[in-house]
Every structure is written in C-alpha cells, then in structure tokens.
C-alpha cells in the first residue's frame, strides 16, 4: 500500500493529476507492472467528507486557484475568476462528475471529412477512428461500470423528473430517450453499492455508487505496490535535458517546499486548463514557446461543449432533486444534419439542481435578482430542467494563455481562459432552446428559463491529437509529436469535442495509451 519511490528514481512514470485521465493511467500502468508516481495538487477526501450540500462541496473540492475568464462568453463578466467548474482533489473531476458515459459516434472522429472546412473554425479529423477505439470503450465501460450492454447492468430506474422530460420529448416526436448509459451502479458491482437515488451526484457520491478514480482506480493502483500517490503536490514545471527529452518534474509538496521528481516518462493529466498551462510554464531556451509546442497549438482550440440550461415550471409537482442528478438523456438531435442551421449535434440531459445552485444560476451574475427570480424559486418543487450539451467547434483564439503579470500562490503566471462562441455554437444553442420550449410547452408549461453556459465542466482540446505535427500537439497515442517521453493523458487530447460528455472517451484513450506506453517502454523505445 505504501510504496515509496525515491526522488532520484528516474525509472518511474510521473503522472500529473489523478482524475479521469491520470487516475486511469495510474491503475492501468500499475497493473502492467510499470512503476509510477502520481502527483496530485489537491487533497485526499474520503466518503466521510462528502456532504449533500451544494455550496459546502463547492468550496471543499473546486479548483479555486487564481484564474481569469476572458473572451466573448457571458462568464467573462459573470464568472470572472471561475472559467471552469472542476475539481482540485484526489480523483479530480471524477469526484464531481454526474456519470453520463456516451461513446462518440463514428462521424464525430471525422468532423473535417464530414463537413469540410468551416469558416472561422480550426476543425481537424482525429487521427483515430471509432473502430480503433471501440475495444477500449468496452474496457472503459467494464472498468467504470457503465450501465448498458457491455456490462449487462441495467440502466437506472426513471425518476419522476426524467419522466417529465421523456414525456415532453415523446410528445414532440423524439424517441431516443434513455436513462443511460451512466457509470453509476444500478446493482451492486465491483464492491460498490447500487445507487439509492440520493441526488447530489455532482457533490460527490456519498455511497460510491458512481464511478470515481478516488475509490476505484487509485486505491487499486496503490494495492499493486507499483504506484505511489502524493497529494497536495502541485507540479510547477517539467524539465528536460539537452537532447530535449523530459527528465522529471519540479513540484511544490504539501509543506510548500519545492521537490524534484526524476522520471523516465511524464504523463500530463491536469485537465485542459492546467495541462497546457504546465507545458507553457515549462518553456526553456530550447523550447521558448513551451514544451511540445512546435505547432503553436498548445493551449489553443479550447473547447467546453456548446452548453446551456433550460428550467421550466411544470403544472404539477416534480421534486427534481429526488434521484440521480442526471437521470436520463435524449439523443434525437445528436446527429450531424447541417439543414438545422449548424453542423454537429447535441444531447438533452436532464439535470437537477438544488435550491442553492438554482438561485445562483437561474439568472447568473449581478443582474440576477428581482421578483421574477424569487418568484421562480418559490416554485422549486414544480421545476424541471435540462442541461444542453453539444459539440462546439475548435477555434484557435479560444485558448489558455499565461497572464502577463498575475501570479498564482506558487508564483507561476495565472491562466487566462478565452472562450467565444462560433456562430455554429450559437445557432445550435438557439435550436436547442427552441426544442426545449416545444417540449415544455407540450407539457403545459409556459414559464421557461433559458440559462447561459455554466462555468465549464467539460474542458477539452488544448493539447490536441493530430495526424500531422503542424496541426496539433500529440500523435494518435497522446504522445507529444516533439518529445517522445512526454504524454498527455486527459481531455486536452481531444481533436474535436464531439457531442458526448468526455469522460468515457478520456478513460478509453488512457487505457489505450497505457497499453502503448508499457509496450514502448518494454521494447526500450522510450
């Protein structure tokens, strides 16, 4: 359990971050006998620390280091220091996530081929196909306990709130309406209990029914004796030698003291703001624009999905808080049909918010007050709502940049996160608002609230994979085009966002990457 590696042990793989990507890498490598050290900036929480309280958990686990929102999205004004809503803690954002686990569709790996050049966007195909990733999707679903055919675990039962959405969707002619796939146990599995419909999935699952690397991959990795996990360790820079190969990392340990951990390979999995930031902060004489950045694409093409919320007051009681936060999905608009006025597609995901979050996000920002807001909140138990999640297009100017003067608590330049809608994103959002209005009208609701995007929970694309080195940062294994022993193992690898929530794909990619990395190490290629 308590394997320790020496700081000077340069045979280890260092993994930066312990979320969906990093946590999976750690377990996959450890199971194969590869020695690894996980450095996680955040704390270790246990199930005892998890509360059914939105704001309490927000302050316990969110990444709240200094960050700046910029660009044309409303968050630049309304969430100036919270561009993204993700986790700093062992298990990363898998502590927070809701569990939706959808595979990419075949065309979503080939958006360039499918739709050609889209003006103002920087669209490329993935260097891999659905066929190549499919076996790893199977492995990911088995690992995560995703409801559906591969695991044989039934989808979760329909909550009242999902029945509302499903009925409205049916009334407007939709049919792809399911309560999964979710990586939440509907029956006991993998020594974790079945979901008790507690709600608060996004505050951490009190029972561990929902998959999180915190209590699956990470303890399993440690149990092999091949993996050491160091929490409260923030990686500051990645170092390299004269040949350009990476040699290890410098990090601030839990006492705030700088340490250097040597490494044979470094896998970066700090999520799509911190991963490119780390590469940019590791600039050197040899790599003045940051590591792995000969393409200039590190930090670029930042994607968050086209997102929005819609909440409506129903004619009867709903009690949306009772049951899983995301109790079901409608996928009738997930296909690619430019006739709708936009390329790519979106899903409608039923999402319950508690009173605390609904009050802050119904009309976010300084102008969100008044009789209309308070009147809506009085009808909380009549409310139902969805989160709209669609593909957003990569644009070069949507990016993570280092702030010229502002520093974080470690003295490193703080990240500035730029995000502006592409017209395609706006058209898609408006289409989704219209469809939701039809759905809720069909149920007799006339009081409907369109919410703009929340701070980004899905963050992708800032170290993207590409066939050609000039178009992206990584090859099809998530290995840097420039530096052979530097890998990126998180959602920043995505070449395009697809419409599905990203975690299942992050995990599938990590399983595949670990297989490749272990083989390359064994063959002495790295």
């Amino acid at each position, binding site marked *: 359990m308590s394997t320790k590696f020496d700081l000077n042990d340069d045979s280890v793989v260092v993994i930066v971050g312990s979320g969906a990507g990093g946590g999976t890498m750690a377990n996959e490598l450890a199971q194969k006998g590869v020695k690894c050290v996980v450095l996680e900036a955040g704390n270790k929480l246990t199930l005892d620390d998890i509360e*059914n309280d939105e*704001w309490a958990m*927000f*302050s316990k686990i969110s990444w*709240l280091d200094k960050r700046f929102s910029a660009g044309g999205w409303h968050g630049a*004004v*309304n969430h*100036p*220091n*919270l561009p993204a809503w993700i986790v700093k803690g062992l298990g990363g954002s898998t502590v927070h996530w809701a569990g939706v686990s959808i595979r990419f569709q075949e065309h979503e790996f080939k958006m360039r081929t499918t739709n050609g050049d889209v003006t103002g966007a920087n669209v490329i195909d993935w260097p891999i196909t659905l066929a190549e990733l499919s076996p790893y999707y199977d492995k990911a679903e088995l690992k995560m306990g995703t409801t559906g055919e591969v695991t044989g675990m039934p989808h979760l*039962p329909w909550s*009242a709130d999902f*029945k*509302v959405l499903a*009925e409205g969707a049916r009334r407007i002619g939709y049919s792809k309406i399911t309560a999964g796939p979710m990586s939440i146990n509907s029956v006991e599995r993998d020594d974790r209990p079945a979901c*008790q*419909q*507690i*709600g*608060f999935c996004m505050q951490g699952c009190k029972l561990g029914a929902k998959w999180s690397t915190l209590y699956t991959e990470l303890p399993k990795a440690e149990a092999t004796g091949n993996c050491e996990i160091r929490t409260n360790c*923030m990686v500051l*820079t990645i*170092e*390299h*030698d004269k040949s350009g190969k990476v040699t290890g990392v*410098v990090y*601030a340990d839990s*006492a*705030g003291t*700088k*340490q*250097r951990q040597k490494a044979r390979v470094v896998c970066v999995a700090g999520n799509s703001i911190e991963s490119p930031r780390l590469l940019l902060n590791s600039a*050197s004489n*040899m*790599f003045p624009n940051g590591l792995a950045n000969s393409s200039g694409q590190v930090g670029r093409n930042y994607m968050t999905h086209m997102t929005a919320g819609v909440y409506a007051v*129903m004619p*009867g009681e709903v*009690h949306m*808080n*009772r*049951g899983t936060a995301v109790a079901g999905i409608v996928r009738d608009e997930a296909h690619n049909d430019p006739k709708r006025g936009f390329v790519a597609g979106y899903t409608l995901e039923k999402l319950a918010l508690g*009173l*605390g979050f*609904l*009050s802050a996000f119904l009309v976010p920002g*300084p*102008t969100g*007050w*008044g009789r209309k*807001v*308070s*009147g809506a*909140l*009085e009808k*909380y*138990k009549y409310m139902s709502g969805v989160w709209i999640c669609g593909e957003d297009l990569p644009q070069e100017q949507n990016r993570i940049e280092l702030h010229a003067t502002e520093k974080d*608590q*470690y003295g490193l330049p703080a990240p500035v996160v730029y995000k502006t809608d592409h017209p395609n994103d706006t058209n898609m959002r408006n289409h989704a608002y219209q469809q939701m209005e039809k759905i809720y009208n069909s*149920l007799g609701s006339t009081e409907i609230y369109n919410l703009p995007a929340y*701070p980004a929970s899905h963050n992708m694309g800032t170290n993207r994979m590409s066939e050609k080195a000039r178009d992206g940062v990584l090859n099809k294994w998530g290995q840097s085009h420039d530096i052979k022993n530097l890998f990126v193992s998180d959602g920043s690898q995505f070449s395009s966002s697809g419409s599905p929530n990203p975690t299942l794909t992050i995990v599938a990619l990590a399983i595949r990457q670990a297989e490749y990395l272990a083989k390359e190490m064994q063959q002495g290629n790295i």
Partner: protein
Amino acid sequence: MYNSPLQVGEPAVAGADFTRRRLLKSMMLVTAALALPALPPDAFAAPLSADQKTTLLRVARDIYPHDSLLDDAPYQAVIDAILVEAESSPTVADLLSKGVEDLEQRAQHIYKVNYTAISKPEEREGVLRSIELTDFFQKIKGGLLMGLYNNKALWPKFGYDGSSWETGGFIDKGFDKIDWF
C-alpha cells in the same frame, strides 16, 4: 536542470491564507458580485440611523421578494450580519452609509419620497436596477443569496428537501412518482 528557473528545497507557496482568501473571493464572484472599484474607506463613517436600517431591510426584501413565504427574520439576519461586519470594517460601514444615502437621493429625485415610501414594488425595483452594479447592492445581494437560498432552515418553505443520504435517499420514497400527465 537544464530548463528550470526553480530551485528545489525552497518554499513555493506564498502566504498561508491565500487559498482561503481566493476561495472566499471566488465564492463571491460566482454568486456574481461584479468587482467594481471600492469607494475610498472613510474612517469616520457614521453608524447607520434607525431609518437607514429600515431602508436596508426594505432593499433586502425587494432584492428577492417573498411577500407571503418569508417574514422579515431571514432578511434581517442577513442585514444584521453585514451591520456587524461594518462595526469592525470602515470600508463596509462606508459602503453602507454612502449606499443608502445614494439610494435615498435617487428615490427623492424621481419620486420625491424616501425609498421605503415608494409604494409600488416595481417602482422600487426600478430604483434598485439603477444601482444594481454597485458594490453596495452586490454586497446585500450576495449575502441574501446565501442567507435565503442556502439556508437549510428555509428549505422546507421552498419545497426543497436538502440532504437525503442520512435517510437512505429517495429510492423507497417515491423518487419515481408522478401523476399529473
């Protein structure tokens, strides 16, 4: 090492309470206080008069009106907490006294009466809209957002159940019951 400007073995973290401060700031911001430059602190800010305190309560009730659902107590609790803060912070005291003064001037200018004497709620809301981006207003709004909607004691009034794991979730408590369509 070749590319590192950093020396190992030295402290990397600036200021122990930094994280806490950032956290509070971010919480404020996510609850949407727009950061406007604060008024210069005035060490001689006079304590608020009884009338001014009454105005603050009216303002609070107008920011998130729940005329029949909530009595004054939860609003008053938020205002009281800010008044307590003002006792030790000249900046907050100043924010309040100048904020109320400015509000009264606007009320007088448009309606020739004090804010609390404007009888129509929508007219009071109109006056408040004109100051909604000020620190004064956002201070009260931020307090109310937490004090009203993140207040467990009030959740039953809103029909929100709050924490449920202690009682086994909703699996056997009708999470799937719906009968109106």
